[in-house]
C-alpha cells in the first residue's frame, strides 16, 4: 500500500497501488480507524507548534471557549505564552487553523471580551490584513494564533464566530423546502 495521504478523517478513500508493470489500480479502502487517526493527527498538529504542556490543574491561566450562541464549550487552563489556537487544539476545540499560525488566513478568528481585548497589544499590520477578511468580524476580534496568554488575561473568554447557515449565492434569499 502506498503512503497514506491526508485522508484520515473520511469514511473511505481511493488509493493508487502500483503494479510491477508500472501501471496502477485504484483500491477503495474503508477507513475503520478514521476517528482515531483524525484525533492523532490533531494531536500531532498541536505538538508541531507550541509544544503545549498542560499546567497542574488549578495553577494555570483560565481560558473559556464559547460557541457562537454564547454557550460554554469548555474551560481550560494554559501556561503563560501559550496562544489561543494552540490551546484550542490541545483541548480538541473546533477552532480551525488552516495556515498553522503563520498569519496567512483568518480561520482561527475569535471574539474576545472587551476588557481582555483592551489588555492586549494592538494587532500588527499583517494580523489586521487577515482580520479584514474574517467572517463576522467585531471590534473585539483577534486571530487566535496571535493572542499570547499572560496572567492578567486569566478568565478570558474566546467566542467562536457564527457561520451563516445555508449561505446563498448571487444575492438570492434561501427558500424553505
Amino acid at each position, binding site marked *: 500500500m502506498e503512503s497514506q495521504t491526508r485522508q484520515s478523517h473520511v469514511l473511505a478513500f481511493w488509493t493508487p497501488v502500483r503494479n510491477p508493470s508500472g*501501471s496502477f489500480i485504484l483500491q477503495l479502502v474503508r477507513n475503520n480507524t478514521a476517528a482515531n487517526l483524525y484525533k492523532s493527527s490533531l494531536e500531532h498538529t498541536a505538538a508541531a507548534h507550541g509544544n503545549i504542556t498542560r499546567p497542574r490543574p488549578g495553577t494555570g491561566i483560565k481560558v473559556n471557549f464559547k460557541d457562537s450562541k454564547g454557550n460554554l464549550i469548555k474551560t481550560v487552563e494554559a501556561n503563560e505564552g501559550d496562544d489561543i489556537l494552540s490551546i484550542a487544539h490541545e483541548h480538541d476545540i473546533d477552532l480551525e487553523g488552516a495556515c498553522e499560525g503563520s498569519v496567512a488566513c483568518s480561520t482561527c478568528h475569535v471574539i474576545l471580551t472587551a476588557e481582555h481585548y483592551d489588555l492586549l497589544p494592538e494587532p500588527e499590520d499583517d494580523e489586521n490584513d487577515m482580520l479584514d477578511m474574517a467572517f463576522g468580524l467585531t471590534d473585539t476580534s483577534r486571530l487566535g494564533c496571535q493572542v499570547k496568554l499572560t496572567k492578567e488575561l486569566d478568565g478570558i473568554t474566546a467566542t467562536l464566530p457564527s457561520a451563516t447557515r445555508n449561505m446563498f449565492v448571487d444575492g438570492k434569499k434561501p427558500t424553505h423546502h
Partner: protein
Amino acid sequence: MHLQLPRDKGIISALDIVHWYTRHPSNPAPPPLHSANHVSIIGMGNVSLDVARMLLCPPSLLEKYDVPSHVLDALRKSQVKHVSVIGRRGPLEAAFTTKELREMMNLPDVALRPLEESVSNVQARTRQQSRTLELLKKGSRAAFGTTLRTWSLDFYRNPLGVTLPSSDSPSYSLSLEHTTVDPITRRAGPLLDSGVPVTSTLPTSLIVTAMGFHAESSSTAPYAQWYDLNQKHIKTLPGGRVSTTNLDSDEPKIYASGWAATGAKGVLASTMMDAYSVAEAILEDWTNLTPSSDPHSEAVSSSPWDAPPPEIMKSLSSPDSEITTYNDWLAIDAEEVRRASTEGKERERMDWKEAKRFLYDKGLRVAEEDRS
C-alpha cells in the same frame, strides 16, 4: 484572455507568466521582458499584483527563494520600467486584498504613482475598504520620482481594443474607455463628456490579462450542464444543492461548495464557512431520506458520480500512466532542495520532464522504453 484583445506575441495571459516562473508542466514561452519597457496588466485581483511584484521586485531579493535560475536570469535582463495595473472600476471594487497591496507598497526602490484626489476621494463602506483606501493614500514606502521602477493603479479604465505595433510605432497602443461607477449598483458605465464617451490611448510593450477564472463553454465535464457561464460557477440552491431537491428521486444528490459554487473569489475562511454549511445541508438531506434507502448499506456508493473521473480511470489502466505517488514527490522534493543547497536557495525547481527523468534514474519509475 480579454474579449476585445487578439492573441499576439506581446499580448499574453497572466497564467502564462505564473506558469513560467513556477515551472508549471504547461511550459509556456517566457514573456518578452528583455524588450519591454512598459507593461499593462488588465484586471485588479491578487494575480495582477503577484505578476506586478515579480516584474518589479529587485531580482537580488528573489534569489534565496525558489524562483528557477533561468527565470532569475530573465528578470535580471528585464527592461521593464513601469507596470500599469488597469481596472474597470474604482478602489472600492478592486479585488486585490490589503496584504498583497502592502507587499507592493513595501518593495524597495519601486514607487507607486500617487492616486489622483478624485479617485481616492470615495466613501468606504467596510473595514477592509477603509484600510485599503488608507494604504492607497499613504502610498509606497519609496517616494515617486526617486526610483528607477514604478507602477500605477489605473482605475476607471476599460480596454476597448489594441493597435498592433507597426513600422511607424514599435509599441502597442491600448485604447481605453474611461468609466464611472454607479454608487448604488456598483456597475461601471462609460464616462461621458457632453454626451461623448471619454477615451484615451496607452502606449505599452506588453499586455497581460488577469481577469479571473473562465471555464470554457465547450467543456465536456459532467458538471458542465449545471455551470453558469455568466456567473462563472455551478448554479446552486441554498445549501450548495445542485441536482435536485427531491430526496426521493433516484437521481444522484449532488452538491457544490467553495469556488465551484461561488466563483473564483473568497478567501480560505469564507470557503471553509461555506463547506460547513453545505456539510450541514448534506447531513440534513441524509437524515430526511425515506426509510427505503438503507444508510448502512455496505456499498460505499453505487453512484457513478462518486467514482474517480474517467480521465483518472483511463490514465490508471494506460501503460503511460502519469501518476506521481507521495513517495515519488518526497524524492523530487529532496532532490530540488539538494540542487539548491550550494547556492543558498530554498530549492531549484525541476520541470516536469526533468522530474520524470530523475525518477527513472532513481529506479522509482519504470522507464517509458521498458513499459509493456
